[in-house]
């Protein structure tokens, strides 16, 4: 099953990368008030159904793909 994990800087956590991107966008004249930079992971998970794929990917996201001190994650199973 194809699963996408989105990892984002937690709310309230300073994201220097996003801020640097925002400044460059402002330099180009784009009105982006805030940019938060995260990561996307596309996984192909061996699982019988969407629920178990979601559970496995959630565990991977929690333990490996994100650091819960600074990042939140979201799991999306392809329909």
């Amino acid at each position, binding site marked *: 099953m194809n699963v996408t994990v989105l990892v984002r800087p937690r709310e309230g956590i300073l994201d*220097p990368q996003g801020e640097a991107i925002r400044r460059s966008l402002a330099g180009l004249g784009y009105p982006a008030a805030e940019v938060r930079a995260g990561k996307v992971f596309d996984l192909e998970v061996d699982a019988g159904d969407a629920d178990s794929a979601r559970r496995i990917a959630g565990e991977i996201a929690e333990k*490996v793909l994100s650091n819960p001190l600074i990042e939140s994650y979201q799991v999306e199973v392809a329909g």
Partner: protein
Amino acid sequence: MRVGVVSFPGACDDRDALRAVSLMGAEPVRLWHADADLQGVDAVIVPGGFSYGDYLRPGALASLSPAMRGVRDHAAAGRPVLGICNGFQVLTESGLLPGVLRPNTHLKFRFQDVGLAVERESPWLPGRAAGDVLSIPVKHHDGCWFADADRLAELEAAGQVLLRYRPNPNGSVGSVACVTNEAGNVAGLMPHPEHAVEQLLGSTDGRVLLQGLLDLAGRPVAA
């Protein structure tokens, strides 16, 4: 006294650490990342560099390596572990040390000597008192230590903050430069003690932390 230094693919300061251990009069032992056997060493240094290319997050993939399984067991037995730079990142990602290292707030690589104010007397800082200042170089892009305000207050109250930057080169919260685990046998810092062991290179203050590691390794481990 035998001190193991873990070599990860992408580590670059493992040989300097091995050499520094020799200069301190101990026997250096090279440990391999793919081997969980620490060969019975008395102390471990997790050295600097860019383990596994810093992929995912600095230290994240190294924290999952067989060698780190061995280091976890070694630490759980009360034996000393010192993480330097990338090694500090590996130890936080492993859950052996509190907090996490993030990109420097100014997003610039920093390579310079930094002042490190001693926060409190500690076995890790033999012969040094609160208020003393060590000079040890840093060289990093991802050295901004972070913990939320409550956690930082807990760590300060528990005496787990050993050194603070003076001035702060990377945006670390509370200017924290060196923290230990609760038991006090695991310590980590971004500055490089192994690069400050000979006067020719400007400072010998790195010897303080390395001597601390050796002193802790010589203590009987509480059952």
